[in-house]
């Protein structure tokens, strides 16, 4: 535990230093830039609320990727599952009319269904044709991208809009706000707790974990590998889908072009940085969201383009992951040297 925190701190510091060098090279003041970055993401009621809210589409795909990877399932389809979830929720929101107390859960469930079905396609192709889910989910991402693009230009297009987008969904499906806090963050908290519980306390979760660590052992031990694979695929698809639905219901209330952005891929990265730990995924999700959120404010103040946040994120990932493995060997080697000294005396 201590080692994990130390690793995170070292990684973050080194990455920020590297980022500072990049900024210096371009003639910006790194201190002022970082100051603005965190002022507009963490310090203050509104910035913090925004960071939390922006974390939703990062944390949910992150959880999805973390659970999948830790279970030995290479689901890289979060981007596609996210937009499919968003599309399902949007279409539901356009045609259903229920009271908010019903409408919101129904739309959330619909978005999960969308992600689940899209992940299910890959799961079935793997199950029945042995097609590696790795490539299949990647290809399905592209296909989902084009499919949703078509859906918002042709059948569900808002006739009043100039660019491809759907009309706004029924206001009963809009997620309410409490002050600056959008209630979508409640879904995120619930998802983190539930996912943690399933993964760490359910018998199925135990089998998923062991399968991810050593599939042959799990199989010989009597775990139903195929059913577990299916379950993980569908569950992680639903998580990514939910992210899409929440983005629609909490934000623009419609499906606009580029809605998925890089959320899901960032989520995958977050899972990797977190070494597939669920709580760590949540925390890193918040941190990455802080960077993305603060970058917008930073741009206003310092004229550093906010896209620098994407560069910073990639550097963070590499440095944290590389230093994790280094720290491990370092700690072990130090113990070895101490033992050797004891032996000599």
């Amino acid at each position, binding site marked *: 535990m201590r080692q994990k925190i130390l690793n995170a701190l070292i990684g973050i510091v080194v990455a920020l230093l590297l980022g500072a060098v990049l900024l210096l090279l371009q003639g910006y003041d790194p201190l002022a830039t970082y100051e603005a970055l965190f002022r507009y993401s963490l310090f203050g009621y509104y910035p913090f609320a925004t960071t939390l809210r922006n974390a939703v589409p990062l944390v949910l795909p992150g959880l999805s990727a973390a659970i999948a990877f830790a279970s030995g399932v290479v689901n890289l389809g979060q981007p596609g599952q996210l937009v499919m979830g968003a599309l399902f929720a949007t279409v539901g929101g356009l045609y259903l009319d229920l009271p908010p107390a019903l409408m919101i859960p129904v739309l959330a469930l619909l978005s999960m269904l969308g992600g689940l079905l899209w992940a299910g396609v890959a799961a079935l192709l793997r199950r029945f044709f042995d097609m590696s889910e790795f490539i299949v989910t990647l290809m399905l991402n592209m296909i989902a991208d084009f499919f949703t693009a078509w859906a918002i230009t042709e059948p569900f297009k808002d006739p009043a809009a100039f660019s491809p987008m759907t009309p706004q969904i029924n206001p009963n499906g809009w997620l309410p706000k409490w002050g600056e806090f959008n209630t979508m963050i409640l879904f995120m908290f619930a998802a983190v707790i539930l996912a943690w519980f399933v993964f760490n*306390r*359910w*018998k*199925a*979760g*135990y089998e998923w*974990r*062991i399968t991810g*660590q*050593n599939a*042959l*052992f*799990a*199989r*010989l*031990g*009597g*775990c*139903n590998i195929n059913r577990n694979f299916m379950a993980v695929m569908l569950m992680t698809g639903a998580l990514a889908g939910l992210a899409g639905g929440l983005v629609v219901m909490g934000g623009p209330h419609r499906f606009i072009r580029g809605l998925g952005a890089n959320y899901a891929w960032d989520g995958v990265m977050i899972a990797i940085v977190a070494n597939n730990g669920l709580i760590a995924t949540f925390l890193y999700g918040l941190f990455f969201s802080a960077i993305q959120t603060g970058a917008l404010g930073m741009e206003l103040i310092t004229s550093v383009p906010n896209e620098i946040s994407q560069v910073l994120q990639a550097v963070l990932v590499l440095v944290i992951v590389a230093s994790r493995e280094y720290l491990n*060997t370092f*700690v*072990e*080697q130090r*113990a*070895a*040297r*101490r*033992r*050797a000294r004891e*032996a*000599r005396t």
Partner: protein
Amino acid sequence: MTNNPTLIEMRHIVKVYPPSVLALDDVTVDFRRGEIHSIVGENGAGKSTLMKVLYGLTQANSGEIIYKGEPVHFREPGEAIAAGIGMVHQEIVLIPEYTVWENIVLGVEPVNWLGKIDRQRARQLVKQKIDEFQFNLDPDARVESISVAARQKVEILTLLYRNVEVLILDEPTAVLTPQEIPQLFAELNRLRDGGHTILFISHRLEEVLELSDRITVMRKGKKVDTVPASATTRQELARMMVGRDVIFTTRRKPQPPGEAVLRVENLSLREDHGRVRLNNLNFEVRAGEIVGVAGVEGNGQFELVNTLMGIQKPTSGRIFIRNVDITHFDILQRRQYISFVPQDRGKMGASLVAPLWEDAIMTHHRLNPRFSQWNGLLLNTRFAQQFTRDLIENFSVVAPSPRAPFRTLSGGNQQKVIVGRELLLQSDFVLLDQPTRGLDVGSMEYIHDQILRIRAEGRAVLMISADLEEIFLLSDRILVLYRGQLVGNLPVEQTNPQEVGSLMLEGQVQSS
């Protein structure tokens, strides 16, 4: 030979494997020019590590090496080879997809100006070396198609091709059949007579006595002594290795077997290309009986385990346990009848990164309702922990806590956890695949006691082992597998290691 000048001196070598395994504890030893020097010791005594330090494959924490009168320090094997020291590892590291000559010239390939490999010349150079040392190899054969003994020759030739003077061989006979060993020894003697120095790692004392000029004995990372082979005996070496007298006799008490538990009928496994892996096996294992399966590795043991466990489907035949036909059961269904200790702990027997308790409850979590809560949805972690603590206590496992990562346990303790887990399943039939391979003597004896205990309980045991000594120590009956066929089914009182050995090697080829 024993009066030749010293070629290599290793002084006060200390090596610790991270985090805290003391592999070499202040070892000082010398090797002379033109001798065959054996290094013997149990698994984990540090013999391989010592040689790896010499070869630059791993770095010592302290100590020095004097080679040809000069202090040397090889940071990687390439430097050692350049200086004339080469090592052949226990696991043969060749590229199966390449031919013999490609493997040998790799790294020192003759090329033309374009960087294109001059095949003609490369082949010719390799052929010359083969003839020079009378190695009887086809340079154009693909390595995947040649025997293990031939692969070993390729390894040795690779070093000779680079003109090494010192050859280190790590347990070379472990992978050979008894027939192939004299040939290797003849080749090694020829090399020695030609001026090469040979360092020979082994734990087979007869071989060592036959081959060596001098012998160094190691125990638990320390050097015990170096003695001339002519001045010692097997008993003395064994005592130095283990630190006490070793009993080579069985503790198995006579016991009449009960009714058949496992029954295998006409079991066959054919591959698509028609290769026969298992050929019409018929045998029984009865209650209170240990049946040992002997055979050179690769003669069907792997496939027998796979078909019994349901990993592979047999082409024909049936498997019964207590008259239940399990031939078409899936793995979980079979697990209600079979306890299974696999041969490879890290690959099949456990997850190394998981905490101990998660490895300890595997299969139990499915079969024992006490592991469930909420109608089978939740895992009862408290019971799981309790179960693991009991297992640790009942099977003398040394582990800090049920939450310790499995990989931090020693090999012997890991195996005890797996054996304990499987025996606690209380199945009538127990399948053991190399249950003590690579273990220290203490753990090995402990596991042997456990196997004898379940025999006394009246359970049926099928034990596959590459160690004939172990088979004779424990078995009531011995099955011999040869090219997928059962060529022997012998009560242990009516046979001897020589007979089983020749069945393993030649079989009694029946037309089928």
